[in-house]
């Protein structure tokens, strides 16, 4: 298959680029410093990035995302095809795949896993498989997924963490009555087809893993992956401590390097400062309902929103808050999202234009408005403190209100907030998820902003059935055009994932969705 060959090539090219000189070496244990611990290692019922981003080490999906997040590559299925009508997917399972307990993966496991993932009673991710009708296995090596309607995202969906294949027998042998209770037990000692096996988990402080002896993929030397003998996660919440431990050699890698330290670590000869392209976008979300709590809302005025956009100096924010690491947004979705369109920064800083727009608006003398941020979050604080200054110039008095996450979410969902800081990372290699939350009003009222655009809603619904990738890209291009010009956000910037590694670490990467991939990681011995 063509897709397969291309994907395989790109992996080789990437690894080749990373390790042009030396050949992969085997053995060793890598210690990776994380900012916080995982909570719940069940692909279907988890709800946090701290789980999602490491789960690929234990569980794998039928299809996988390429390192750049733009294409798909074979996972537990070696090839796949979608029928003409777009409502049936046929997948060939990889032969000889075993779970980490040594039992072979069967079609029964696949059918059970996908049915569990699509069950509307299970977790918050089942919408990803909403189009799936039935999953069957005509023979021991084939899976057929019948859809209720043509779904252009189905292949990408089969690469999302919640569609990972789990061992049915081992799961059902767990104590407990309900699926949730069994999952709670199972998640303590996950069994999957991934490259690593969890051997101990000291909550809040460390996770220890050894290589999965039964892992199916082969390394460059023809022997089974992973190259590492073991992998440790050490939880070090304090940024400065995590960096110090990396510099002193206690750990081999550290995630979430604060932007303020990136420049300094780039200059450190003992450190590889990596900036993996991410789908992380930062913006300000505005409530655009005509009234909030019974009072007229200036943010409902499109001219006001545009004025605020032009008065927000994104280049300055990138410098002050991300120390030059981020890049101004060219669309509401990150540029590493498939079908992203737009090539120049949105609303480049132009104070005169902003003042002119304010003068034309219903609020020529400005107004007072509040913004919700998360207490203690330095990025939020930096952004809003700077915006407070920038908007002063057009007569807007911004009041910063720091609250905890639950309070913020509450006001957000109730639609009683005025403005808030926002951050988003995609969970699927497709523009549909971010668009449904940001722009498509039936999902959550376009980020609970109350913004609604009939054309966007119609285009999005069409795009969810459009099987022609070119036409679908056009639909998304138009959605982005409308949203970017008139939407309820101040698009700020997108940022990569800053990871600092010891010089001896090779072949580690984080995909744009955030997943940490250690499968082909190796250490200079």
């Amino acid at each position, binding site marked *: 298959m063509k897709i397969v060959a291309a994907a395989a090539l790109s992996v080789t090219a990437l690894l080749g680029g990373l390790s042009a000189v030396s050949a992969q070496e085997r053995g060793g244990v890598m210690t990776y410093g994380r900012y916080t611990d995982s*909570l*719940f290692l069940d692909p279907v019922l988890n*709800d*946090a990035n701290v789980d999602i981003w490491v789960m690929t080490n234990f569980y794998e999906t039928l299809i996988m995302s390429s390192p750049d997040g733009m294409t798909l590559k074979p996972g537990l299925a070696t090839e796949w095809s979608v029928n003409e009508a777009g409502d049936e997917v046929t997948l060939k399972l990889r032969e000889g795949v075993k779970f980490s307990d040594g039992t072979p993966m069967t079609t029964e496991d696949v059918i059970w896993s996908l049915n569990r993932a699509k069950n509307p*009673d299970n977790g*918050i991710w089942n919408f990803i498989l909403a189009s799936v009708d039935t999953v069957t296995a005509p023979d021991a090596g084939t899976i057929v997924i019948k859809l209720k309607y043509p779904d252009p995202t189905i292949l990408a969906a089969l690469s999302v963490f919640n569609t990972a294949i789990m061992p049915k027998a081992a799961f059902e042998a767990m104590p407990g009555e309900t699926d*949730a209770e069994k999952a*709670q037990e199972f*998640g303590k000692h996950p069994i999957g087809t991934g490259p690593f096996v969890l051997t101990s988990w000291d*909550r*809040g*402080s460390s996770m220890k893993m050894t290589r999965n002896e039964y892992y199916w993929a082969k390394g460059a030397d023809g022997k089974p992956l992973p190259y590492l003998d073991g992998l440790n996660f050490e939880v*070090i*919440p*304090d940024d*400065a*401590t995590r960096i*110090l*431990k990396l510099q*002193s050699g206690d750990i081999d890698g550290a995630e979430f390097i604060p932007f303020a330290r990136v420049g300094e670590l780039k200059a450190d000869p003992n450190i590889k400062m990596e900036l993996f392209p991410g789908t992380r976008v930062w913006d300000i979300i505005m409530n655009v309902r005509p009234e909030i709590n019974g009072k007229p809302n200036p943010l409902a005025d499109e001219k006001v929103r545009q004025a605020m956009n032009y008065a927000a100096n994104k280049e300055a924010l990138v410098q002050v808050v991300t120390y030059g690491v981020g890049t101004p947004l060219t669309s509401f979705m990150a540029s590493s999202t498939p079908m992203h369109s737009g090539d120049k920064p949105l609303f480049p800083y132009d104070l005169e234009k902003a003042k002119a727009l304010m003068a034309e608006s219903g609020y020529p003398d400005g107004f007072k408005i509040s913004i919700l941020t998360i207490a203690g979050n330095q990025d939020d604080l930096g952004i809003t403190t700077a915006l407070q200054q920038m908007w002063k110039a057009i007569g807007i008095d911004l009041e910063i209100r720091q609250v*905890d*996450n*639950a*309070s*913020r*979410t*509450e*006001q*957000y*969902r109730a639609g009683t907030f005025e403005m808030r800081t*926002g*951050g*988003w990372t995609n969970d699927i290699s497709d523009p549909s998820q971010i668009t449904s*939350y940001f722009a498509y009003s039936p*999902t*959550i009222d376009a*980020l609970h902003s109350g913004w609604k655009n009939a054309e966007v809603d119609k285009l999005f619904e069409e795009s969810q059935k459009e099987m022609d990738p070119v036409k679908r890209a056009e639909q998304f291009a138009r959605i982005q055009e409308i949203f970017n010009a008139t939407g309820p956000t101040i698009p700020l910037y997108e940022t990569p994932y800053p990871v600092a590694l010891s010089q001896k670490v090779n072949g580690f990467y984080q995909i744009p969705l955030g997943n940490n991939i250690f499968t082909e990681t190796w250490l200079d011995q």
Partner: protein
Amino acid sequence: MASYIARRLLQLIPTVLFILIVVFALVRLLPGDPASAILGDRAVDADVERINRELGLDRPLVVQFGVFVKSVATGDLGDSIHLKLPVTTLIADRLPVTIMLTVMAALIAVVMAVPLAFVAALRRGTAADSTVRGAFQVGLSMPVFYLGLILLTVFGAKLRWFPVGGYGEGFVDNLYHLFLPAVTLAFSLSAILMRNLRSAIIGVIDAEYVQFARSKGLAPKLVLFRHVLRNALISTVALFGLSIGTLLSGAVITETVFAIPGAGRLMVDSIYGRDYPVVQGLTIALAVLVSVTFLLTDLVQVWLDPRVSR
């Protein structure tokens, strides 16, 4: 004595119940619910409702409280909403860390305060006395988070004598990790202790029986030691009992600054995360801890000085 202890423990029950009701009401008054805290920006109404239903949060408050009290009575504190672990396991994990931190802080406070108090008391009115008393005032005015930040930067990040936070593995490593945080926490306690000891020592020196002993030719050092040390111990123990609440408040901040996985930090995180079972369970645990501390300090005082007995 046994009936005294029994009475004290019985008194604990209404206190704990009262705190529980306050805390139970308080955390449910907080805007937002566990589902909002869990889901954050992804929160869709249907998911929020389903999760709250699964957690039994759609039932009336009185019913929830009843269910809670019933399960507590059977020794079950429920499971953490976020960490999916039994609350009892969490408490068993985190509370010892906080206890160790506060006990270390108390010991360090004593070690810092006793010699200084002796110097100040014996050299009353001299420069040494003024210096010690000045240090006392500074100690009282020093915010825990500020002192912690400075110690962390100087002795952790710059000089690298101590780890920059965390808890470590194994007892010795734990002691090493908790040293700077304990010093931070000990600072203001030692200041108060020093002041109390100083006046206690002066009181003993001036007391008639010491003067009498001296006039009889008893070695002054011995006299001082016997009388002063006992008095010092009594006031230290009493003070520790009184300060336990302040120490625990300080521990919340210290654990935040030094990234220590302790009970104080867990409490604040759980309030933020609306993790009701953990907040409730920890409230009980802390109330019991504080009450037992009160009881123990009372008993030790009685043991040291039978006159205190009621």
